[in-house]
């Protein structure tokens, strides 16, 4: 219910929202949780395992109870904390993990079977009969598990990522964070202040405190006003810092428009990568619940949450509130409620020396031992030291077992927090994250004044580290009460007492884990699932640890803690992966002939990041094979044109360019004549083939290397590695010129005729023989011409500056068509090269060496080169290795397939008998059959042998003959024609 005169919500701005289809009213500034409590809605969820009713437990991102689904369709957002979700006009939220409804949930029957569903029960059963696991047990378990549901529809919201940089990152805007930010910003430091909440101020907004003789809220408001007026300060609200990473990098999730009816182009979330020279963690602390029988009913909350709902939202979570505590701090809850006119049924304090009540009864030396109420709390029972049990009618229990500093970020780099007996909690160990200092409550300083002092001191330290001048600050006076508590983790007694409200882990479960020798804290966690729920144990880990320590007869520090890992709050995959949906995962690379190819109807296929045409369909053709056969015919009989610009091109210049190439290639390049091109083979240092291609010598000290499309990047990196790391003595410079040139293969008997129609100076076989290269002028544009062939035909590659690529491609193809040829795509290119036994990365697939592909003679014995020594290892020259062969069918066969295996005709097709495998297959119009390349053990000695090619997957068995990999024009006369 609303409490008049309290809260920061704007009562002049009412908003309607839906929960489980029922319409309610809240106000601007409400969270879904505060608005539901204002409407007396207590039960909002079901727990994970026992499907017990769950209510709102806290008021922050660590919420252990109130997880809901917001929105519908592709916008459906599961597992949203009602305590974080701000309401907006038209918000629609649903409860989760229940069927058919929140009130009546079939699987709540699990609760009755609880004796059989204790920790790890599933490791001991469901094993018989074997086949039932996948068919019966697992599907049932999966359906009853899980919490919220994804819609199954592709994301339809905008997400984004961004980078930010600062001198000082302050995480949290409670008193310590604000003080730190003020001190640093006044000194001129570049400050980013991140606050999870929609408003700054942290606990100042949830308490009635005084700072500098004014209310804490007012002091905070003034501080924020000052900070927001400064150019060197960036204030980021609704931003959770999610992780600390190396060298001052922090991840942060900003919820940009979750609170808006219409995002209007804004991202839903922005994931920030913040680089900070220094950071101050002012993340506060999380109040811990106490385990007692049936402590999980809706209406049972943390005491601080009750105060937050009162002061921040003007909501009393109950009509008759009871406080259960082991410390002084929680008594504020009763004081504040009474002051606001809310009835307090009483304060139950475990301590006999608890403070007296101020308008409410205090039951000293007593413990709450049970609760009652079907879907929400109706009463609590409490027991005095002498065993007497009493009962209070109450609809809200505000409990406090003390506070746990929010140390998480300080542990993200493997640091472990240390136990502080004085506050019965873990506090950060200094220096666990370089450059980050914890202050205030997250550092175990629980009074407001101590928080202000630590915030100021840490900022001064940071300023000193940054070499900035400091300005002495007056730290204002504030509440400085000592923190008094008597440890209490679990109230003894029968029945189930919850530790992890979400995963339904009880005190009994932890004890049973210890009984079964899961005594290490990590074993206990993994066995019971304690702390593995959406809150990652923020509410329960320390208590569970205390129970384990007790059960194993150890102290808490000896028992240790589990590790806190990023993210601090759950982060959507869409935000961390922003920008990648659809094509954004990797850049798209387009050749200059792309548009013209698409206009010709060519299906474009990926070649690494590039797109290349598969084939160019002609009118009347029904299959790609018809097109491919026709295009092969162009090259064999007339002239074909193909864009080869995607191949890497690297300018290699300098006095030592030749020596450099001799070192990276197996064969010699220093001896290559200017104006000539040579095929080169490049190895990795392990002796395996890395890449191949042609390199042309354009001048005395100028070469241009061609790489395969796939290896362009890796080869450039490799060349720089050789130059900088192995041979910095060589005077040679490398620059990629891949993108400068649009380069087209012009191949076929009429290729020279076609070119001579464009070239300003005609070429012939004398002035431009096979493997010649040089500068030419084509239609008035200066370019380069290489007489090289990947088809076995008389062929050239002509290159012009890329701006002319589109125009040249159109000109070449239309002229080729007039000569009985035309454009050809990747399919035809592949057939042409298979007919010639030319290799691609299908053959040099990273496991083959020069010996395997029959090029061992290309490894020059006159010099050292990368990979030479290792290529001579016995295992790489074993004659039984699989060697490149040609494969052709015997008689009529349906097809040959790449990826099939070769067997002796009499052998069965099992691994032990496999002799080799097929790497490339194409239909050769020339031979009228499929032909292929493959690797066969000792294959070069087996030409003529008949074998079986077996493809189990596609049910193909073919009789084949092993042959030389060069099927077509083995003498090579055509390239010289």
């Amino acid at each position: 219910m609303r409490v008049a005169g309290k809260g920061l919500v704007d009562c002049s701005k009412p908003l309607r929202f839906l929960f489980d289809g029922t319409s309610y009213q809240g106000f601007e500034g409400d969270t879904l949780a505060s608005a539901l409590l204002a409407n007396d809605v207590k039960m909002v969820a079901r727990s994970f395992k026992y499907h017990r009713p769950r209510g709102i437990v806290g008021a922050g991102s660590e919420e252990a109870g109130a997880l809901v689904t917001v929105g519908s369709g592709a916008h459906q957002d599961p597992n949203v904390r009602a305590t974080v979700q701000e309401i907006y006009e038209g918000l629609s939220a649903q409860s989760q993990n229940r069927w058919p409804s929140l009130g009546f949930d079939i699987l709540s029957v699990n609760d009755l079977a609880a004796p059989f569903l204790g920790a790890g029960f599933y490791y001991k059963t469901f094993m018989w009969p074997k086949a039932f696991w996948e068919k019966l047990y697992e599907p049932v378990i999966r359906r009853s598990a899980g919490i919220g549901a994804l819609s199954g529809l592709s994301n339809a919201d905008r997400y984004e990522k961004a980078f930010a940089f600062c001198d000082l990152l302050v995480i949290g805007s409670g008193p310590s964070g604000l003080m730190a930010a003020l001190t640093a910003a006044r000194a001129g430091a570049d400050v980013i202040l991140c606050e999870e909440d929609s408003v700054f101020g942290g606990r100042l907004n949830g308490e009635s405190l005084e700072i500098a003789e004014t209310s804490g809220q007012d002091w905070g408001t003034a501080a924020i006003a000052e900070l927001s007026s400064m150019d060197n300060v960036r204030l980021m609200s609704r931003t959770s810092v999610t992780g600390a990473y190396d060298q001052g990098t922090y991840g942060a999730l900003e919820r940009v428009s979750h609170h808006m009816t219409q995002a209007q182009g804004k991202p839903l979330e922005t994931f920030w990568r913040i680089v900070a020279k220094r950071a101050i963690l002012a993340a506060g602390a999380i109040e811990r619940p106490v385990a007692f029988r049936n402590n999980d009913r809706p209406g049972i909350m943390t005491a601080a949450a009750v105060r937050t709902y009162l002061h921040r939202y003007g909501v009393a979570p109950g009509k008759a509130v009871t406080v259960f505590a082991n410390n002084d701090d929680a008594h504020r809850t009763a004081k504040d409620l009474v002051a606001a006119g809310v009835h307090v049924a009483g304060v139950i304090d475990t301590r006999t020396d608890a403070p007296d009540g101020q308008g409410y009864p205090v039951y000293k030396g007593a413990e709450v031992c049970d609760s009652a109420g079907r879907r929400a709390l109706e009463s609590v029972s409490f027991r005095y030291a002498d065993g007497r049990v009493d009962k209070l009618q109450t609809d809200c229990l505000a409990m406090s077992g003390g506070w746990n500093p929010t140390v998480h970020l300080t542990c993200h780099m493997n640091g472990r927090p240390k136990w502080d007996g004085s506050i019965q909690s873990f506090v950060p160990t200094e220096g666990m994250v370089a450059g980050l200092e914890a202050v205030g409550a997250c550092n175990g300083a629980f009074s407001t004044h101590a928080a202000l002092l630590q915030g100021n001191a840490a900022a001064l330290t940071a300023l000193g580290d940054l070499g900035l001048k400091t300005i002495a600050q007056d730290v204002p006076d504030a509440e400085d009460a000592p923190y008094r508590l008597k440890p209490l983790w679990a109230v003894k007694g029968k029945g189930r007492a919850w530790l992890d409200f979400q995963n339904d882990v009880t005190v009994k479960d932890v004890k049973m884990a210890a009984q079964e020798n899961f005594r290490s804290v990590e074993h206990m966690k993994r066995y019971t699932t304690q702390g593995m729920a959406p809150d990652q144990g923020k509410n329960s880990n320390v208590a569970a640890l205390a129970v384990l320590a007790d059960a194993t007869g150890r102290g808490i520090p000896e028992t240790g803690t589990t590790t806190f890992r990023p993210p601090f709050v759950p982060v959507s995959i869409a935000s961390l992966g922003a920008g990648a949906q659809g094509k954004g995962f990797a850049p798209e690379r387009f050749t200059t002939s792309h548009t013209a190819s698409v206009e010709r109807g060519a299906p474009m296929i990926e070649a690494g990041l590039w797109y290349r045409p598969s084939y160019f369909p002609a009118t009347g053709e029904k299959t790609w094979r018809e097109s491919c056969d026709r295009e092969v015919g162009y090259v064999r009989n007339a002239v074909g044109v193909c864009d080869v610009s995607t191949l890497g091109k690297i300018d290699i210049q300098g006095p030592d360019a030749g020596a450099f190439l001799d070192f990276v290639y197996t064969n010699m390049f220093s001896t290559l004549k200017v104006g000539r091109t040579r095929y080169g083979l490049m190895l990795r240092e392990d002796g395996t083939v890395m890449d191949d291609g042609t390199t042309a010598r354009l001048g005395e000290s100028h070469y241009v290397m061609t790489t395969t499309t796939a290896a362009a990047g890796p080869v450039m990196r490799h060349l720089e590695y050789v130059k900088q790391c192995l041979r910095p003595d060589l005077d040679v410079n490398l620059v990629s010129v891949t993108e400068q040139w649009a380069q087209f293969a012009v191949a076929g008997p009429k290729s020279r005729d076609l070119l001579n129609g464009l070239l300003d100076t005609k070429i012939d076989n004398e002035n431009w023989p096979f493997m010649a290269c040089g500068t030419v002028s084509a239609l008035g544009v200066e370019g380069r011409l290489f007489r090289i062939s990947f088809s076995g035909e008389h062929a050239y590659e002509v290159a012009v500056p890329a701006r002319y690529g589109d125009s040249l491609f159109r000109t070449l193809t239309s002229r080729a068509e007039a000569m009985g040829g035309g454009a050809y795509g990747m399919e035809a290119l592949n057939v042409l090269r298979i007919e010639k036994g030319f290799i691609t990365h299908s053959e040099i697939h990273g496991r083959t060496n020069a010996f395997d592909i029959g090029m061992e003679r290309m490894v020059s014995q006159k010099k050292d080169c990368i990979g030479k020594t290792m290529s001579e290892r016995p295992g790489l020259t074993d004659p039984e290795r699989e060697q490149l062969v040609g494969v052709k069918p015997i008689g009529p066969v349906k097809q040959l397939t790449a990826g099939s295996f070769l067997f002796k005709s009499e052998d069965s097709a099992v691994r032990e008998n496999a002799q080799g495998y097929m790497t490339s297959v194409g239909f050769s119009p020339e031979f009228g059959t499929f032909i292929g390349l493959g690797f066969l053990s000792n294959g070069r000695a087996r030409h003529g042998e008949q074998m079986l090619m077996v493809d189990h997957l596609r049910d193909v068995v073919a009789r084949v003959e092993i042959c030389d990999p060069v099927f077509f024009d083995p003498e090579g006369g055509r390239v010289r024609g």
Partner: protein
Amino acid sequence: MRFSGLKVLTEGLRGNKGWQAHWRDAQPKAEYDMIIIGGGGHGLSTAYYLAKNHGMTNIAVVEKGYLGGGNVGRNTTIVRANYFLPGNSEFYSHSLKLWEGLEEDLNYNVMHSQRGLINLFHSDGQRDAFARRGNAMINQGDDAILLDREGVRKKLPYLDFDNGRFPIYGGLYHPRGGTARHDAVAWGYARGASDRGVDLIQNCEVTGIDIEGGVVQGVQTSRGPIRAKKVGIVVAGRSGQVAAMAGRRLPIESHVLQAFVTEGLKPVIDHVISFGMGHFYISQSDKGGLVFGGDLDFYASYASRGNLPMKEHVMEAGMTLMPMIGKAKVLRSWGGIMDMTPDGSPIIDKMDGIDGLYIDCGWNYGGFKAVPASGWSMAHLMATDTPHEVAKGFRLDRFRTGVGIIDEEGTGSQHNLH
């Protein structure tokens, strides 16, 4: 104590008071026949099979931290036998067969779930490579089915078939592939070994290996010296440090591999999916979390944690492949220490020149599925001094000689190319 549904029922009725320790915590004895260094999945399974297959019970597993605290407790739980190179094929095939009988053998439900694994491919060239893989799997006697685009769509309708950066041409479907509950595997082997008399010694760090005249004498530990006739090093990412205690350098670099789990969700992904173009793989745990991972962070590290660029890359891969997971929220991320070999394949061998010293390492980022066969083979090697038939390819000297390099990825027998 035998576990069964009936036992759960009767214990439940008696207030669950009768459950006993799953394994004994042993104090180190002065001497054992054999010591296994490392109480992870591979070490525990080695001990289990030494006891079960070879009758060796005077043995100890010494573990620096807690049992199962290494990679067996921090992986993406995928179990498969889809390798294609001789050396790997027979080994992983054997391992999968052991998985299929593991629950019965261990009397422990490790939740081995053969939900099927699909490796997607995105070009003709990749299809050919996966066809080779699938045919090799069938040659080996395992199962594989080549799905075309429509076949994949039928099973995984939520993938982005229309706009994804790399078009889905099809997938290699491995029906017997799946997942298992990782921790339970360690605990099940620990219980099985302990029941057979193996001493499991936690919080016991090996600080030295005693060698005299080229023969192993035992180990020095944080809890004193322990003598042993044979010592097996089964310490994954820490192999380099432990081998150094015996004066050996290994062909291993330790790298960090991150993995991620989301908050619990109702069933939405029913298979294990692998997306090679994005180095991304994903499945959904029985609890409902999406469990997924990607590539190495790519720098040598023992920190068990990674950095943002690879996290982002993994999430980006997820978003281009299956944008329906966008609103799943990552709850936790962690890193394992991967013992990377140059060729990406493991080592199970004697340590050359030191009698009685054996090593099982180099599992790269694929050690979980190997746990049963690795232990089986290492136990065989340690008990008989001969390599097991399915693991004889995992020789330590293959890099020096070039004989039998097993490079599944084709990235070369050189470090950091994987």
